[in-house]
């Protein structure tokens, strides 16, 4: 059971990394939601004892290497966010998917605040409007992502 969880979650995380790397039109690129983050959130909601901070850190490092970012940037943000999930999962799990959107907003808010904070610290230029729109898009695709990942979980992890 545990090894199955590891296998399926790592597979979906890798697929989401590749989807994250897909080339998009120039206009849409800044508003791209952090897909890997959302998938990580789903798995840590489902199996908080198995998919926890180690996963967040390791996949964050992988993401940094692939996206040519300073090493540790995504790892830091993912670790903080997954920590919040692990703290709050009993409450979030009880909500319906529609209400989860709002709790996700609360979870993702620190993520985007931290990302702009880190950007400021590292002198990376960004547009606050783009960050906000990307946040809204990521909570809007959550129900779809949730149902897809739930389907995968029910099918492959009994």
């Amino acid at each position, binding site marked *: 059971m545990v090894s199955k969880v590891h296998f399926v979650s790592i597979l979906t995380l890798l697929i989401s*990394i*590749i989807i*994250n*790397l*897909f*080339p*998009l039109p*120039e206009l849409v*690129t*800044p508003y*791209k939601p952090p897909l890997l983050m959302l998938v990580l959130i789903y798995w840590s909601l489902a199996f908080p004892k198995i998919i*926890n*901070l*180690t996963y*967040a*850190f390791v996949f*964050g*490092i992988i993401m*940094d*290497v*692939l*996206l*040519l*970012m*300073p*090493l*540790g*940037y995504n*790892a*830091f943000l993912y*670790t*903080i966010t997954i*920590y919040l999930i*692990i703290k709050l999962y009993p409450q979030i799990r009880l909500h319906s998917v529609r209400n989860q959107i709002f709790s996700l907003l609360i979870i993702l808010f620190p993520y985007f605040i931290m990302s702009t904070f*880190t*950007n400021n610290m*590292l*002198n*990376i*230029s*960004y547009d606050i409007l*783009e960050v906000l729109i990307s946040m809204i898009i990521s909570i809007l695709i959550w129900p779809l992502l949730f149902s897809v990942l739930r389907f995968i979980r029910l099918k492959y992890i009994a």
Partner: protein
Amino acid sequence: MSSELHFRNERFIITKLLFFSFLSIFFLFADINLKYSNEVRKKFSHVIQPIYSLAALPLGTYNSISTYLTSRNNLILKKKELEKKVLIQSGIIQKIPSLQEENKRLKKLLYSANNSSSSKIQMAELIRVNLNPFHNKIIINEGRNKNLFIGQTVIDSVGILGQVSEINNDFSVVTLITDPDHALLGINARTNKRIIISGIGDNRKLIAKYIPLNEDIQEGDIIITSGLDNVFPEGYLIGQVSIINRKESNDFLNVFVTPSSSLSSNREVMLLW
């Protein structure tokens, strides 16, 4: 019993949180000062390259299918158009040797050093993947085996694109001139004044820094590379001055330059030796 277990678990998670966040912050600052993430990427380039190609696959397949499905008439039309273009351009090229000779003669008269222009040009293909939006970097499919070097100039058909900043076995990273970390020394072609051009992270805009308020600069001025930075060869097109904000309260002019090269829509780039 169970509450005690819960408590232990809680403390364990907090320890883990502190450990990982300190580790990542440590990595972050170490990487900014030492830039060792290049080394990490070099070590794992055999793993990274397939991931990039996999991510670039759908667009590549779409492109090849669409070329396969273009009608014969369209191809003939395109061929005619290209032939016309080649004819016009070779007409222009005819004059270049005589111009070069003239240039050499004039430079001799002025006793200035004659820097020879670069000779070899090679094409490289872009690996189109979606990198992070804060940096303006592209990945090309040529690596160490093609004798690339750090700081090599990358151009496209209309202007300068950037420089090679990282070389791995099967792919290299090119930092575009619009990257916030990038700056180069240009020359205003009309007045021959030097201008520092740096990126701000936007692919449609460059900023010209430290220009005094009384400088002779106009909208529409063409900026070319100066060759003084020892990275870019002289005389390549950077862009055109688009906006000038003259504010008396500022110390310097606020000048924006539109890059001439199509920084976001290229499929192939050229490397200069």
